């Protein structure tokens, strides 16, 4: 029964009791029962402890005893004291602490307690000291009725001793579960052995980890920093999918690593009619020559009192448990693994001591089918467990009474089957029903009677021991034959007389006035493979009740794990899944890993194609990524188009790798301070990285070279040794001393300028729209090659192309004709002709010469203005922008001033 309903009645509307469990409060020498509720209001939680009258049904049944707010200082942890018997399926003892408070609580074994602890832990997680809270003021109203409201009395320092931790034993221990694999000494083989460090590590881990609140916040914080190393480790993906895959594979291959081994199961059922044990149960429980491996003993009508019925509490539980424990086979030692009871229906589950470690995943559930279809006077209790690798469920049921009520009994059976559910530890899995278990053993007072025969006829057949004939009148047999109940179950041949109803204390058939027809009420059925019934009998010697106990001895083939093979199978599966995963890492093939661009020239567009083919098993996203300490994914003279994209499985993409050296990159390449070398990193999202190396050689050019350098070159630049170019470039600008590499004095102006200007002067002075119409790209390339490699008498190409080449040349100069250092001075003096001229005289000689030479040329052009339509303003604006450049961006007034400056040199001599 859900007792949170009772608690809810005592709370206000805003507060809700999430879950409640009954527990024992352990005090120094005594333990007292308490009802423990987890209460939530907003984001705050508190534990409420109530004293209660037996099982709590309404709010009147409970009285508040303690309130424990779940603050940062709240700790709940499992304690296992060595003197307490710790065994699979045992109860859980937890310690709850807050400053100034310590409680020890014992929670009953079972999924409900687990769920409770889970919820409390969740509440702890939700506690966040940083969000503003009501500071639990809502609890103060309860405080009035209590002497102590723990933990709130003194102001708390949130950052102080915050320790939050819930730990509880894993109770399901499945095959897949590493903890099982490891905890089971027999399976130790699976974990790898390590030379050292192992022991220490394991111990460190096993200690219940106490995590300070601060640490928790740290973690939350750091996990948002995806770059931090720690966060990366913590932001670990969870591989739920992997676990499920492994689990499925293991199940599929179960036959490989398990073998069938027989174990003996003793199943007993006894309706004790509310009596206490009066005689030894040995004749019933110890009737077999050998000690059974497992006992499942069920009782019905354990206690017929009202207390038992309403409060599910009875002293008989202990009495009968003791009687059974005393009556078990004397040749072996047994452990009581589980006791499950619903009112008078009780099921005890014992195993031989040596098998205890192979029992796991023990759980118990009950379903009432009595009054109102829910109460526990009728119904079933079930215990499920895993023995080695077999899942077993044992059900003890007491079905509806009365001869004519067989339909009702069928219905009870179906109810139990559908309503009795075992929670799985993985909440995402549906709960387990009884019939989901590979082996189901069903015992109990099923209450089916003999029909169609009169009492005397029945007794007559019994007398003749014609149980076969009698069995054909058995309701259960008939219902099973009609497929109405116990579908898929089997029952052995009944070779014993009906077990109901006797006069208590005798072997006499019922002599009361009702004079009941004898019936086989007490039965044992089974479902599953590899089950052999060795014996099915009643025990007439026991006379305590109006029923006789029944027993069935089974030999059941259990799937036992061959550790060696299991380990191998498991590793194989993991390996296969790893392999699968590795195959799913995005991967591509590249048409080429190295690209060589030979003899790249100034302003020459070069391109190669890189083909990326997705040969992986998944689509992928690719991108060229930046390298450490670099501003872009590639050097400025290189580009990749597209530089990122998506590739379907089997798809292909062509990437243009383009090289283009312009004025901003030419200078350093000319001087060989830089080379055409780069490595592109092609990154696949969640995949590998590929390096693509780009190399090439750049042919030095007068374009992008300094005036000073060019003045020192009497030969075309490409005829010069690269080393000479390099040294000349690095030479200080105002250096007047003779350099070792220069044998002759420098030229007055670079021959390249002379060639272009002279060409224009001689053949294009009257050319219409000179400097205004673009040239041809191909002709520019010829002009460039001509300037860089040889000295023909005349330059190739049209006047416009040569004019454009001249402009490009001036534009590419690393230091403009009017050096940067004089820029500001020029602007400042632009209104004054004399000042302008004075600045020019301060330029280094080659710059000065070039400037004067160009001005003279422009003035010549202006003499032909009738033909070429050029005017001062046009020329001043074109050349102003090239000769008088700023290192930063020019604004419009600066441009105007530059134009004005140049104009002075064009006007005056008109």
């Amino acid at each position, binding site marked *: 029964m859900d007792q949170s309903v009772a608690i809810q009645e005592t709370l206000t509307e805003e507060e809700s009791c999430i879950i409640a469990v009954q527990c024992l409060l352990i005090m120094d020498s005594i333990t007292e029962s308490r009802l423990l509720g987890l209460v939530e209001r907003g984001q705050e939680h508190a534990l409420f402890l109530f004293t209660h009258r037996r099982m709590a049904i309404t709010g009147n049944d409970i009285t508040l005893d303690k309130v424990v707010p779940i603050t940062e200082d709240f700790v709940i942890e499992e304690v296992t004291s060595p003197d307490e018997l710790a065994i699979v399926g045992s109860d859980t003892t937890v310690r709850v602490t807050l400053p100034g408070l310590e409680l020890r609580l014992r929670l009953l074994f079972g999924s409900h307690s687990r769920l409770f602890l889970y919820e409390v832990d969740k509440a702890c997680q939700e506690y966040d000291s940083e969000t503003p809270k009501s500071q639990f003021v809502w609890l103060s109203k309860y405080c009035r009725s209590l002497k102590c409201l723990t933990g709130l009395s003194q102001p708390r320092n949130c950052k102080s001793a915050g320790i939050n931790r819930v730990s509880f034993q894993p109770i399901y221990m499945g095959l897949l579960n590493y903890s099982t694999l490891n905890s089971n000494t027999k399976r130790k083989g699976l974990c790898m052995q390590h030379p050292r460090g192992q022991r220490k590590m394991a111990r460190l881990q096993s200690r219940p980890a106490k995590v300070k609140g601060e640490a928790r916040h740290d973690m939350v914080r750091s996990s948002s920093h995806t770059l931090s190393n720690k966060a990366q480790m913590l932001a670990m993906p969870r591989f739920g999918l992997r676990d499920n895959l492994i689990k499925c594979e293991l199940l599929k291959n179960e036959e490989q690593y398990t073998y069938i081994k027989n174990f003996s199961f003793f199943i007993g059922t006894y309706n004790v009619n509310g009596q206490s044990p009066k005689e030894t149960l040995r004749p019933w429980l110890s009737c077999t020559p050998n000690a059974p491996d497992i006992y499942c003993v069920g009782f019905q009508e354990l206690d017929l009192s009202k207390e038992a019925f309403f409060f599910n509490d009875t002293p008989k539980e202990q009495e009968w448990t003791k009687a059974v424990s005393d009556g078990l086979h004397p040749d072996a030692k047994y452990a009581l693994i589980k006791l499950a009871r619903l009112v008078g229906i009780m099921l005890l589950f014992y195993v031989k001591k040596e098998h*205890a*470690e192979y029992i796991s995943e023990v759980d118990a559930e009950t379903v009432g089918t009595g009054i109102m279809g829910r109460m526990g006077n009728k119904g079933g209790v079930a215990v499920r467990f895993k023995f080695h690798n077999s899942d077993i469920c044992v059900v003890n049921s007491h079905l509806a009474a009365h001869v004519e009520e067989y339909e009702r009994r069928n219905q009870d059976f179906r109810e139990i089957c559908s309503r009795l559910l075992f929670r799985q530890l993985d909440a995402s899995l549906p709960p387990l029903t009884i019939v989901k278990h590979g082996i189901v053993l069903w015992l109990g007072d099923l209450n089916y009677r003999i029909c169609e025969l009169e009492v005397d006829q029945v007794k007559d057949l019994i007398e003749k021991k014609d149980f076969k004939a009698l069995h054909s009148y058995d309701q259960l047999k008939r219902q099973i034959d009609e497929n109405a109940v116990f579908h898929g179950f089997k029952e052995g041949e009944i070779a014993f007389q009906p077990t109901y109803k006797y006069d208590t204390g005798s072997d006499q058939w019922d002599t009361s006035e009702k004079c009941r027809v004898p019936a086989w009420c007490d039965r044992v059925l089974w479902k599953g493979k590899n089950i052999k019934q060795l014996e099915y009998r009643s025990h007439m010697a026991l006379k305590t009740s109006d029923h006789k106990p029944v027993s069935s001895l089974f030999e059941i083939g259990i799937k036992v794990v061959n550790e060696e093979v299991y380990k191998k199978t498991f590793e194989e599966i993991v390996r296969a899944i790893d392999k699968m995963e590795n195959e799913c890492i995005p991967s591509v093939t590249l048409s080429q890993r190295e690209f060589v661009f030979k003899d790249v020239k100034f302003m020459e567009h070069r391109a190669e194609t890189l083909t990326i083919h997705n040969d992986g098993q998944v689509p992928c996203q690719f991108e060229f990524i930046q390298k450490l300490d670099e501003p872009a994914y590639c050097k400025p003279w290189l580009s990749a188009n597209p530089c990122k994209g998506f590739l379907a499985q089997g798809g292909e993409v062509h990437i243009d790798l383009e090289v283009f050296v312009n004025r901003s990159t030419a200078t350093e390449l000319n001087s060989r301070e830089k080379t055409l070398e780069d490595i592109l990193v092609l990154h696949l999202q969640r995949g590998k990285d590929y390096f693509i190396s780009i190399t090439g050689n750049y042919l030095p050019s007068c374009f992008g070279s300094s005036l000073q350098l060019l003045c020192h070159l009497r030969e075309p630049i490409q005829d010069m040794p690269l080393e000479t170019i390099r040294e000349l470039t690095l030479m200080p600008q105002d250096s007047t001393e003779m350099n070792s590499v220069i044998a002759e004095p420098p030229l007055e102006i670079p021959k390249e300028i002379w060639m272009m200007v002279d060409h224009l002067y001689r053949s294009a002075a009257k050319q219409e729209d000179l400097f205004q119409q673009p040239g041809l790209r191909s002709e520019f390339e010829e002009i460039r090659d001509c300037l860089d490699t040889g000295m023909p008498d005349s330059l190739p190409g049209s006047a416009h192309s040569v004019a454009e080449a001249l402009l490009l040349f001036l534009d590419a100069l690393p230091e403009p004709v009017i050096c940067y250092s004089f820029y500001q001075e020029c602007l400042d003096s632009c209104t004054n002709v004399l000042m302008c001229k004075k600045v020019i005289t301060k330029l280094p000689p080659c710059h000065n010469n070039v400037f004067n030479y160009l001005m003279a040329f422009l003035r010549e052009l202006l003499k032909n203005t009738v033909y070429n339509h050029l005017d001062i303003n046009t020329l001043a604006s074109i050349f102003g922008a090239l000769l008088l450049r700023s290192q930063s961006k020019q604004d419009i007034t600066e441009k105007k001033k530059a134009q004005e400056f140049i104009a002075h040199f064009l006007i005056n001599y008109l």
Partner: protein
Amino acid sequence: MAKQYDVLFRLLLLGDSGVGKTCLLCRFTDNEFHSSHISTIGVDFKMKTLEVDGIKVRIQIWDTAGQERYQTITKQYYRRAQGIFLVYDITSERSFQHIMKWVSDVDEYAPEKVQKILVGNKSDEEDKRQVATEQGNKLAKTYGMDFFETSACTNHNIKESFTRLTELVLQAHKKELDGLRASINDELYIADLEDDDNKRDRSVNSQKACWC
């Protein structure tokens, strides 16, 4: 059944070109060996599940290009690693000399906490040996690292060295792991592991009330 959390680590293979990094990885993950040398040009990785001290650890192993010209680029991968294999070839004195350089790069670029082990590969090539086991041992000692001589060819010490580095990384990150354990409630298995073991032992040995 509850899923357990997995720990994911990144391990990095470093060392000169040709020392056998790719082969070590292939042997470890796919149990394969290729005798041809196809130089790695880029950074490749593979996943592998290991169980160390009962913790299911998934390791991502990064195989880097050993060629000198890629070294400036591979450095940027160091900072993402929790563990590093420094690999040399016992038949190449030069590759052993270079370990020093690799170590100094690691010191500069990898996280401070990074765990390192020294691996001398190609131990099967005894007749071509240029670096004595003792030299390897000594160097490892100087750097305070563990040392393994391995052979990707004969599968010698492969699993051992990978497991060892994983173990070291686990130890170095113990704190975070504990934190993690406390923060993920349905995945407390690891914390309870040893407890459970004790319990079992006790339950088997004890002769308490429950034993009849």
